[in-house]
């Protein structure tokens, strides 16, 4: 899933891009309003994160311009101006959500996941049906997994990875294969990135993370879902 991120403060933009990438999104960065519109036209994303106060063109301008091409694409505004008038104008322009500075990444993640669920809902082609892994029921359109009545929030990447394991149940998957599928080929993370990600995922989906049942480690080869 592709996200257009327009934010003039470089640190904020890089940080948000990292958060989004970790979540599993492909991020297109723009440092001002004009390049955001150009980037949007060149490569239409699945949703847009817009800072309001930007050089060249304001976030509101960008939003108006995008709405001329696409009435439905989810747009999240990021702003230091929490004034209601901004919110009203934003919602009138068809903003789906607001992230008010200063924010923590948990809030950003929560809001982005919510918007992603809406993206799935509006997409005509349903990407993935829900599937089961051991006692876990994974619902990709909700970005959630359920163990009984307990809901577990998942990132886009978590879902992609679980789906990949589910499709290749019983197979030992090499780290590079997983990497290429879930991160993309032009992404060069450190060697530990995948291991760390799986370790974090296990903490949430496994009943006992020290003795994983869903994603098992195959020493020297990679990981495997027994099925």
């Amino acid at each position, binding site marked *: 899933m592709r996200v257009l991120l327009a934010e003039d*403060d470089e*640190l*904020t933009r890089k*940080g*948000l891009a*990292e*958060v989004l990438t*970790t979540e599993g999104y492909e991020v297109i960065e723009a440092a001002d309003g004009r390049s955001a519109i150009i980037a949007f036209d060149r490569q239409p994303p699945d949703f847009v994160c817009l800072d309001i106060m930007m050089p060249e063109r304001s976030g509101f301008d960008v939003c108006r311009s995008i709405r001329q091409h696409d009435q439905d694409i989810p747009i999240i505004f990021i702003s*230091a*101006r*929490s*004034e*209601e*008038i901004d*919110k009203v104008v934003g919602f009138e322009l068809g903003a789906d959500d607001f992230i008010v*500075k*200063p*924010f*923590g*990444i*948990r*809030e*950003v*993640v*929560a*809001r982005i*996941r*919510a918007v992603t*669920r809406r993206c799935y809902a509006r997409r005509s082609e349903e990407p993935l049906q829900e599937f089961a892994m051991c006692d876990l029921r994974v619902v990709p359109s909700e970005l959630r997994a359920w163990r009984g009545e*307990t*809901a*577990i*929030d998942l*990132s886009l990447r*978590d879902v992609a990875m679980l789906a990949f394991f589910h499709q290749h149940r019983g197979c030992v998957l090499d780290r590079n294969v997983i990497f290429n599928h879930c991160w993309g080929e032009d992404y060069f993370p450190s060697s*530990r990135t995948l291991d*760390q990600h799986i*370790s*974090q995922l296990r903490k*949430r989906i496994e009943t006992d993370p020290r003795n994983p049942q869903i994603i098992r480690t195959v020493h020297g080869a990679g990981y495997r879902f027994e099925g």
Partner: protein
Amino acid sequence: MLGLPLAGLMWLGGRVVREEDAAFQHRLRDLMTGQLGNVDRLVVTHFDGIARRLRSSTKLEAFDAETVRAAVRGEPLAQQMIVLDAQGKLEHPHLEEPLNQGEREFLAESRQMLLDGDLARAAGIAVGTRGRPPEAQETGTRAAQDQRPGSNQSDGWYVWYQGRGVQLIFWRRLDDGRVVAVAIERARWLADLIASLPDTIPENTGPENAGPENTAPDASGASGIGTDSARIRLVDSVGQTVYEWGRYQPEPSEVAFAEATVSQPLATWRLQAFVPQSLMSGADRSRWFQVISGIAAIGLTLLLVAAIFWRGYAQDMKNALQRVSFVNQVSHELKTPLTNIRMYADLLERDLSNLDEEAARRPLTRLQVILQESQRLSRLIGNVLTFARQQRCTLQLNPRPGFLDDIVRQTVQQFSPSLARLNLHVELDLKASSPVRVDPDAVEQILVNLIGNVEKYASNGRLLKIATRLHDRTSIITVEDRGPGIPKSERESVFQPFYRLSDRIEDAAGTGIGLAIVRELARLHGGDARIVDVECGSCFEVTLKSEPDRGVAPDALDRPHHRASDATATEGTKP
């Protein structure tokens, strides 16, 4: 505050003025009565002069008609002379002798009076009962004496009334018992009397005013009242004005301000004094002026004192508002670096959580401080911005369906590290399980302020208890602690902006706007914030009027806050 003492002063002033006014009226009446007395003395003096003169003109050699007629001719005042013998019998003009024109005219008028023996009785002659008694006098003739019958006085005035008015007769009893009486020409004595009266009313008794025209001594002692603008009127026995003077023109129906009777011989006449309203009210006005100027002076002093206090207060307010305004301006600028601090601290925390637990423990603890402090800074900035919006009247809510309990859980989660550090035990009693329409950001801000206060002022109580419940269309949140509590007298004031329970510097953490914001946000929700009684510590109760959101099934609601704060299901949670 200022009105009450001023009203009291006005009332007292009014009383003083009324009393002063009454006293002034009394004094004016005394003064005018004195003036009338002076006039009366003038009249008395005038008639004493006449009497003196007539005493000598009635010293007759003989009592025959010729001698008497010569005496009448020699005395301009005399209209006619009457001689009575010792028995009171009319000796002149003798009815059986030929009479001249004047005598005939006089007798035509006075015959009855003479025949009745009134004059003789008045002059002290014992007259028999011959003739009719006085009460049966003929119409048009009334008699009055200034002397009682049988007195030893040798002369005096006899007054009788005839159609034209009062008639004066001066009588003198001679040694041989005869009585010689002089009827005085009415027009003459009246003209002389009027000539002897003043034509102005003397102002007062000051020596510089005691000119020849103001021979009357004024004993009243009042000065500066302006009696010269009054009017004095001499009125006869039937109420006809005989003579009047003074600048004032009274209304025809006006009642006299002061009145006195004239001494003998004009005892049936009256002297009236009229005082213009302006003289009384003028004095009144000057009193009022004095009182009002006095009150105004006191009022001004009070105002000045109030202004000094107000200035101090206004200066404090102004400083505080300037501080808010300034912080408001810089807050937006602060937000971008603050965002980066928080976000990168979050990212760092995430990185650390991938490391070996043992190695990451110390950095993680320190990072927690950075995160908490940046969150605290966020909250402070949020408060200032909310307050600034409230001051500009642009504070609005953005209500949407949600779960009150979720907002509480999420906010408490935000505080959990610092609550744990302060060793504050959190007790949640959440019973608002159905969705309601509130502004989640506003509710979070309310909770953040209330929990922040517990952290700041009541952490020694070791307990933070938060309860929610729904009652009809009202959501109720209570935040309770076991801290020092808030005195009853302060329970309203704490909601005032910039109000603190203690002004000691060491207690003065925070901006002093937290509770004001709590109340404002609650009131925008149609509810309120107040402090309720608890056995120990303090308990803030916030009510929010909210439509229960029946249109949306709970499952259909997006609950990002709840999920994000759910420790068991959130990515990147702390170990």
